[in-house]
């Protein structure tokens, strides 16, 4: 159990220090146009990747979950229809829950 606590505390400390480091790095790093552009594009690349990974994989293997895919498809349709953020989330969750209830585990 102490091992798990060590992992919990090390993860907490590591994650916090990484956040703090970002706010502490000298601002002149961002004076370079390429660095600034990189910092702008990082969330786009990582969030897109995170979305795909959380939808289609579990651990190190691909998973096919029709209910989850249906929810994501609904989210994309809502986004194409320019629905507000919260509507997109609610629609995605509702469709996924309905598909799950319908047996599309």
């Amino acid at each position, binding site marked *: 159990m102490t091992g798990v606590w060590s992992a919990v505390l090390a993860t907490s400390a590591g994650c916090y220090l990484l956040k703090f480091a970002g706010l502490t790095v000298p601002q002149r790093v961002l004076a370079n146009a390429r660095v600034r552009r990189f910092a702008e594009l*990082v969330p786009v690349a990582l969030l897109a990747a995170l979305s795909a990974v959380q939808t289609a994989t579990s651990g190190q293997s691909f998973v096919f979950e029709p209910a989850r895919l249906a929810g994501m498809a609904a989210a994309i349709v809502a986004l194409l229809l320019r629905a507000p953020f919260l509507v997109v989330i609610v629609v995605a969750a509702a469709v996924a829950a309905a598909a799950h209830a319908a047996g599309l585990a």
Partner: protein
Amino acid sequence: MPVETVASTPVRARPLRDGVGLGLAVGVSGIAFGAAAVSSGLSTWQTCALSLFAFTGASQFALAGVIAGGGSLLAGTAGAILLGSRNTLYGLRLAGTLQPRGWRKPVAALGVIDETTAISLAQPDPASMRQGFWATFCCLYLTWNVSTLIGAIGAGRVGSPEAFGLDVVGPAAFLALIWPRLRTGKTERWVALAGVAIALGSATMLPAGVPVILAAVAALAGAMTAPGAAQPEGSA
């Protein structure tokens, strides 16, 4: 950006509404984390400690996932921290706008995560960006921690998160958050697609969490090939 441009641009700045809305919507998925972590073998206190102090969902889920799978605690910790390294880049991006001083800096640091960055960067001017950051941070922090506790206590009683569609809340939120930037920027679309391709392409070969970090290569490629193509933020 020039102040007069901001004043004359009919961009709707809704940092409070968007931030609080996102905080509530994503924060509720803390129930899923709380339930998953306790089911993985973490105690209620360990689960709550992660939400209070690590406060970055993907890393928290990653650690719980490794513990559930019986993986090594060291690898689990390394993976979770690696996954949190994107927050350094977010902090780099936000520092110039937030410019936190004194006690605000260590507090603001805790709030540098996907959601606060996305809401902040979607605002048209620095004041709205700061407002969006703090609104999202406060609301999400409270909701995430309360719902983590509820999930941890109620694990096994509330049924599966999938029954409520909670497993798509994260992925759908991440996509919705970058959508305005995908609509306005050609480079952004390519970077997003490349990021997805890199992450999915390496998912079966690398430890969970690493493929998402590797997707930063797509951002690097985008910055090297089209450094001057910056879009006015929040123009969507």
